[in-house]
């Protein structure tokens, strides 16, 4: 068995790079590629409130998710994101209707809700009153943009196994990744424990309600999980977790200092970039310095880690293709050249049918090529992680 796989491996590698289309071997795309693609689309969505472009992004995300998701449990969550997106739009519209706002003279009034007078100290908020088409539309568009961001996030989570995504963390952040992975696997165990103890409680004649019952359930469950985590820690220790390699306490301190200074730099930089009163150069400088410090900290921290990865996800042309078609749309929508920038955010006054700017539309449509560029996902095997 092992000999067969050993020979098949180089062959698979050759075929993976040489062919495309129908003959391609199913494999999982590098999780980072999906995340970059989804984040780029989200950036594009955040730049526009043109309903046609937003709809286009929705459609592109939907097509790619349908084409390239697997059957694994974590890949079945996309409809929850869709539901959440619809809820966001609905909530925004309802709020705009109930707390009458955004109505300017000359608006097209759809209907009037009975107005409830608010006390004087609560001025500024009015409940009920006239509802205009413009206000509803602007709420819907705002909601749609948020919903679009949500769907992009959902797509990333659906297309890329979240746990595999954690594995690409740099060596210095490895511990963080392990902590998250362990926490994720402990949650279902905790639920199981609670159910078991609750069932057992009835054998002692307890009703299962009130503070007393809470204690009777919490104590055994916590004892259980504490024991289990001690055993896990002992197991991980005996299996070589945390082998420090050749790190000295001094090098560890240097790494920590670099990381902290870098994070502080990033914060200052972000503040500088967002606050318009701060000179632009300070913001960019702080950001760059912070990023440089963080990177060197990560590099230094990563050097002391002696660890390898089992079946690392390869980064080949499909990954490059997916990343570039995602980035294309983000770049086109951010640069504002080659089309009329106003078309990205068409005004509601006067109310008119929005125009479709050609270049952004083409760029967004190009993102859908990710579905073709990415290899087909591996067949379902009953794996859950």
């Amino acid at each position: 068995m092992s000999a067969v796989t050993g020979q098949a491996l180089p062959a698979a590698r050759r075929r993976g790079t040489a062919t495309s289309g129908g003959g391609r071997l199913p494999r999982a795309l590098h999780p980072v590629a999906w995340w970059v693609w989804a984040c780029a689309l989200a950036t594009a969505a955040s730049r526009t409130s043109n309903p046609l472009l937003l709809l286009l992004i929705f459609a592109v995300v939907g097509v790619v998710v349908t084409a390239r998701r697997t059957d694994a449990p974590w890949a079945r969550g996309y409809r929850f994101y869709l539901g959440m997106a619809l809820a966001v739009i609905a909530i925004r519209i309802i709020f705009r209707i109930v707390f009458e706002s955004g109505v300017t003279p000359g608006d097209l009034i759809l209907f009037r809700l009975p107005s409830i007078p608010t006390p004087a100290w609560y001025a500024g908020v009015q409940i009920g009153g006239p509802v205009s088409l413009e206000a509803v539309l602007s709420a819907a568009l705002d909601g749609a943009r948020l919903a679009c961001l949500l769907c992009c996030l959902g797509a990333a989570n659906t297309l890329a196994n979240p746990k595999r995504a954690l594995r690409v963390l740099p060596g210095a952040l490895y511990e963080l990744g392990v902590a998250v992975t362990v926490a994720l696997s402990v949650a279902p165990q905790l639920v199981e424990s609670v159910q078991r103890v609750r069932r057992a409680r009835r054998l002692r004649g307890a009703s299962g309600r009130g503070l007393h019952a809470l204690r009777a359930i919490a104590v055994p469950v916590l004892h259980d999980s504490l024991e289990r985590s001690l055993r896990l820690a002992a197991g991980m220790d005996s299996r070589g977790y945390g082998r420090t390699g050749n790190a000295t306490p001094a090098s560890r301190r240097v790494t920590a200092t670099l990381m902290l200074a870098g994070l502080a730099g990033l914060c200052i930089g972000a503040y500088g970039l967002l606050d318009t009163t701060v000179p632009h150069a300070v913001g960019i400088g702080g950001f760059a310095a912070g990023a440089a410090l963080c990177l060197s900290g990560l590099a230094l921290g990563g050097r002391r880690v002696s660890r390898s990865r089992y079946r690392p996800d390869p980064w080949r042309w499909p990954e490059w293709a997916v990343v570039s078609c995602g980035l294309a749309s983000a770049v086109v929508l951010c640069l504002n050249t080659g089309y009329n920038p106003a078309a990205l955010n068409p005004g509601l006054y006067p109310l008119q049918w929005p125009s479709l700017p050609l270049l952004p539309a083409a760029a967004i449509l190009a993102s859908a090529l990710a579905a073709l560029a990415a290899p087909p996902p591996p067949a379902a095997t009953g794996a859950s992680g």
Partner: protein
Amino acid sequence: MIHLDQVGVTYDGATAPVLRDVRLRVEEGELCLVIGHTGSGKSTLLAAINGLVPHFTGGTLTGRVLVDGRDTARFRPRELADVVGVVGQDPLAGFVTDTVEEELAYTMEQLAIDPAAMRARLEETLDLLGIADLRHRALRTLSGGQQQRVAIGASLTAQPRILVLDEPTSALDPTSAEDVLAAITRLVHDLGVTVVLAEHRLERVLPYADRVAWLPGDGNVTAGDPATVLSQAAVVPPVAELGRLVGWDPLPLSVRDARRRAPQLRRQLPDTPPVAHRSAHTEKDAAPALTARGIVVRYGPLIAVRGVDLTLRRGESTALMGRNGSGKSSLLWAVQGSGRRSSGSVSVAGAASDPARLTSAGARRLVGLVPQTPADLLYLDTVAAELAQADRDAHDRSAGPGTGGEAVTARAILDDIAPGISAGTHPRDLSAGQQLALVLAVQLAAAPAVILLDEPTRGLDYQAKAGLTGTLDRLAARGHAIVVATHDVEFAARSCDRVIVMAEGEIVTDGPAATALTASPTFAPQVAKILAPLPYLTVAQVAAALDPVPAP
């Protein structure tokens, strides 16, 4: 390979050392079996081999532990990971990742093994342990035996020269345990891995052991040739017990060894045992203590129990056997009234209504159930507090009368079952056997006529099992009807009058233990296997037959 020189271990805050002046040498490629009852320091001894004691657990270690030439005083467990692989009791608690393949790769990743070599080793390990078809499965969906084999594989991929296993089968049913032990013996024979193994199912591994280390409980270790050590050890399987009784030398270690020596003994023994395998207390003429009719339990499309009829008599102790998933637990919970019951009825003598129709406080006065993990019922800080709470619950007369005679205090019951458990102890600090006794006392305080125990023998050593046998015997003598769901044939032979075997939710066998347990060779206790076709079940029966002078 492993060299312990004058090792002593004292935990922080303990008055006496767990291990004292231990000298033990395990040579390359040996299988060393560690025996001794719970609390004798087996786990400490095993954990000292890879440095978990004292680096992880704390405490003081004196003397020297040398593993493949490395001193554990200077090497931490993680730095010994390439030499020693460790497998614990509960595989699920030790899993870091969540699929089989990733779990097998984890140790190799920590050791920075080259990805190509990693891939090749992983494939070999999958085949070695026969888990290749599980490679993409989620760990949580595997059976206990499969999980334990994955755990063994996960420590093997680092190609350690030593494998340390601390009771790897104590939480498994016999079939899964067989799979795991077969895998371990294969490792010893095919790979020449040095294995140190603590195990309750001595009879399974003894034939393969090169060395036995016996911990009598006073902190010392007696190590040596298996037959020699077993001739003096307190913890022995029935086959060795029989060998000692008859005076076979060297002591037989497997049923096969004993069977080859047995023809003469069989000629010596009368055709029917002069005494029964246990003294029965069954009250045959009285009305049944519990009658269940047409019990059905279904979980969606799955039918766990398929129309089972069950009659329990006062003073009768019944073993409920069958493989995992055959519906044993579901049946017990349904009869008690707390579990799901889709249809069927239960009537208890002396009670007007079905326990399922009563409140949970009322139901437990009719039928008491001790669940598979007894500790789930314990939530207070001391044994005394638990017992006091049990008495308060029992005296809450609003729930209706009990059916098992007058109530006694939980403390008196506990002292009767397991004397010497101090009132101030935290229930979680008790051994598995003591926890079981405490929960049994709590349940008995409500004075139910019927007592059901769901796999009480899981994780108990020989001594604790003998204690439980005595307890159940006294309860039966007092007129309780008892049902014990168990996989343990030896336990059933010693403690039960009647055996019920379930398969796929139905009862396939129901009869007296003496006939049910000797009917098939696979489902028989060791003594029956050795002496078949003679219907002897226990060593005590053989002793009585050989020594006609009745004991007073």
